[in-house]
């Protein structure tokens, strides 16, 4: 862990991309901007990988703010996240070169893309909380810019603003957490916090309050139940944006934050319970909504929501390394899913409604293969990546409580259902649309190939202990997250769990395969209507929160003008008083004489009697 200036260089590369493309984007022109952006991300990937091999790195600028250093730190945990962010990020950059072909703001897009990567890297590498916060809000800004990339349409601009504001609510939680930790420990750098928390000597409830604030921050960023409204609307952005930001990287930042602060959350039953509850609720909400959507990107968005629910449950039950493992696997197969949807949209000339698709198996053979693998991996078919991480989560939930395991099993069944629904509606049956689909160019296909390989193989880095094949991820991560005691399930229960989840997955996939091909029954149509607009959550928020606040603002505005009236009233009161006094001068000389003598007598009396 040596101090090296290469660490900030990792962040500087994409930042350089942002600046170059931002200022001279037009001059750089169409394909060159894309390649430049992609290679910069590749550069930071390789640099990060090389530093990780050397056992991590550190870089600090002391007293950036009084008592707060600007410090970056690459350890195993942020190493894994770095690999995901820059690796998958690079692939999506390549894919976007093809996808964004012919768009007017081509270089502007890639400069924002690089800004996002830079902000995400700062978030992941930041050691002191304010630095993480810079990345945290930087990522929010990038998502605002990218969602509202085609800002000329009102709906895109509105959803960008909505995303930013909801994220800001989460950020407030993060800020308050920083305030509380500062007032408790007087420092905000995570390494010192770890020692201080071990040292003890603080009231336990305030620490759990800090944990709660962090949780609010994570909910805001990872779109968990109360603050999940912005993710579906975020699909208004171009598909690579949805793939990178709203599948692979940004939404997982919340999980990363919780895992990074595992030493605060661990051992606090209340917090763990609430995380599990939130995760479960989000998983079910995401799954059910996804089943009712018609827009292809919204389907995939809700599936992401559901998978995030899984990750939160993993963190809740204390399986921190499993959450990161699920992030890695999810990054691969979800990005693949998004990119295949993107290829399909690209092929159909921008058509996003699933009802106008179908039969892509014949027209786009290669994309079909990617779609099949993505659906199966997301559904949790045994040998693929999705199965292993989901199964690990299920194992830990069984430890936490069998009732939770049953619910999670149901959720994974739903996951299999919506994955296969997505596959069937897009690739099977006859083509219902009017356009004539053509295969995507190689620059879009090759990233998908790599992701397909990942979706197939990445599961094997975290096998359960029963399979004698060594588990690489757990020891690697626990060095950074910290050792948390965890007694292993007996062997036979582990095997039964694995077999049961495998059987459920295969069964549901087959059932779904057949179910979605024939005309849908009546009860499903009614359910679909409700699920389409997210069980009316948006409408609920508007009536309960947004409109009353706007009305109150109007009221306050007129009240403020009234305040000014109040001061003017005070003035006129003085004027009235003055008028009264002036009235005294009634002009009659006798009155004056009387006034004079009366005052004289009074003064003399007072003078003598005093």
């Amino acid at each position, binding site marked *: 862990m040596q101090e090296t200036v290469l660490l900030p260089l990792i962040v500087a590369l994409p930042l350089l991309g942002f600046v170059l493309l931002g200022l001279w984007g037009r001059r750089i022109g169409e394909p060159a901007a894309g390649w430049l952006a992609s290679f910069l991300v590749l550069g930071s990937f390789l640099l990060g990988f090389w530093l990780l091999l050397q056992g991590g790195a550190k870089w600090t600028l002391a007293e950036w703010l009084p008592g707060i250093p600007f410090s970056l730190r690459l350890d195993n945990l942020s190493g894994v996240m770095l690999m995901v962010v820059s690796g998958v990020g690079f692939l999506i950059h390549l894919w976007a070169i093809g996808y964004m072909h012919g768009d007017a703001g081509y270089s502007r897009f890639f400069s924002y893309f690089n800004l996002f990567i830079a902000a995400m890297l700062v978030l992941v590498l930041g050691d002191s909380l304010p630095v993480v916060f810079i990345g945290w809000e930087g990522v929010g800004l990038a998502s605002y810019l990218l969602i509202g990339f085609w800002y000329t349409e009102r709906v895109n601009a509105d959803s960008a603003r909505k995303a930013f504001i909801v994220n800001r609510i989460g950020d407030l939680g993060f800020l308050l957490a920083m305030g509380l930790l500062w007032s408790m420990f007087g420092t905000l750098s995570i390494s010192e916090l770890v020692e201080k928390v071990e040292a003890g000597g603080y009231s336990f409830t305030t620490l759990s309050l800090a944990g709660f604030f962090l949780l609010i921050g994570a909910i805001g960023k990872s779109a968990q139940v109360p603050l999940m409204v912005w993710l579906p609307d975020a699909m208004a952005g171009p598909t690579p944006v949805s793939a990178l930001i709203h599948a692979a990287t940004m939404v997982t930042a919340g999980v990363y934050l919780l895992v990074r602060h595992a030493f605060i959350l661990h051992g606090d039953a209340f917090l763990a319970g609430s995380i599990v509850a939130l995760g479960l609720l989000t998983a079910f909400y995401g799954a059910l909504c996804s089943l009712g959507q018609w827009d292809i990107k919204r389907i995939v968005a809700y599936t992401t929501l559901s998978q995030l629910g899984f990750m939160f449950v993993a963190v809740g039950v204390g399986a921190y390394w499993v959450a990161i493992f699920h992030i890695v696997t999810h990054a691969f197969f979800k990005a693949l899913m998004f990119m295949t949807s993107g290829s399909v949209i690209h092929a159909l000339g921008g058509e996003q409604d699933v009802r106008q698709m179908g039969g892509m198996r014949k027209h786009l053979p290669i994309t079909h293969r990617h779609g099949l693998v993505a659906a199966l991996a997301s559904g949790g078919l045994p040998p693929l990546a999705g199965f292993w991480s989901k199964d690990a989560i299920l194992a830990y939930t069984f430890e936490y409580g069998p009732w939770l395991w049953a619910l999670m099993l149901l959720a994974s069944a739903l996951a299999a259902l919506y994955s296969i629904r997505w596959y069937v509606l897009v690739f099977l049956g006859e083509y219902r649309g009017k356009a004539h689909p053509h295969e995507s160019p190689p620059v879009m296909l090759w990233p998908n190939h790599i992701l397909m390989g990942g979706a197939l193989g990445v599961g094997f880095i975290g096998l359960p202990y029963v399979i004698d094949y060594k588990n690489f991820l757990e020891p690697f991560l626990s060095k950074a997250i910290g050792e948390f005691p965890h007694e292993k399930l007996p062997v036979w229960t582990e095997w039964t769990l694995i077999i049961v989840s495998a059987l459920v997955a295969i069964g549901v996939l087959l059932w779904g395969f057949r179910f979605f091909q024939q005309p849908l029954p009546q009860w499903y149509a009614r359910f679909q209507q409700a699920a389409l607009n997210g069980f009316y959550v948006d409408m609920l928020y508007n009536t309960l929160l947004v409109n009353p606040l706007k009305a109150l603002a109007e009221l306050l505005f007129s009240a403020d003008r009234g305040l000014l009236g109040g001061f003017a009233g005070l003035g006129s009161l003085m004027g009235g008083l003055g008028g009264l006094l*002036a009235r005294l*001068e*009634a*002009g*009659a*000389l*006798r009155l004056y*004489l*009387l006034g004079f*003598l009366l005052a004289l007598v009074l003064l003399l009396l007072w003078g003598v009697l005093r």
Partner: protein
Amino acid sequence: MIWLLASALLFSLGAYGVLTRRTAILVFLSIELMLNAAALALVSLARLTGSLDAQVVVLFIIAMAAAEVAVGLGLIVAIFRRRETTNIDELRQLRW
């Protein structure tokens, strides 16, 4: 000592006169009365302390009163010539 009380009485009589009379001349007359009350007080004090200054001052007062009468009556006569009345209650144009 008794004369001091007498002058005080005279002074308050003058004040009463100022308040009750309506015509300007009588008001002015009662003010002159108050002046003479002050002169009386001075004379009695001179007698008490035996100093000559007070008596000289009384002479000054008489001269001053005369000057005041000259100017005052001139003014009152001018008003009478223009308004045919010296009732001070009618002069009420200047107010508020």
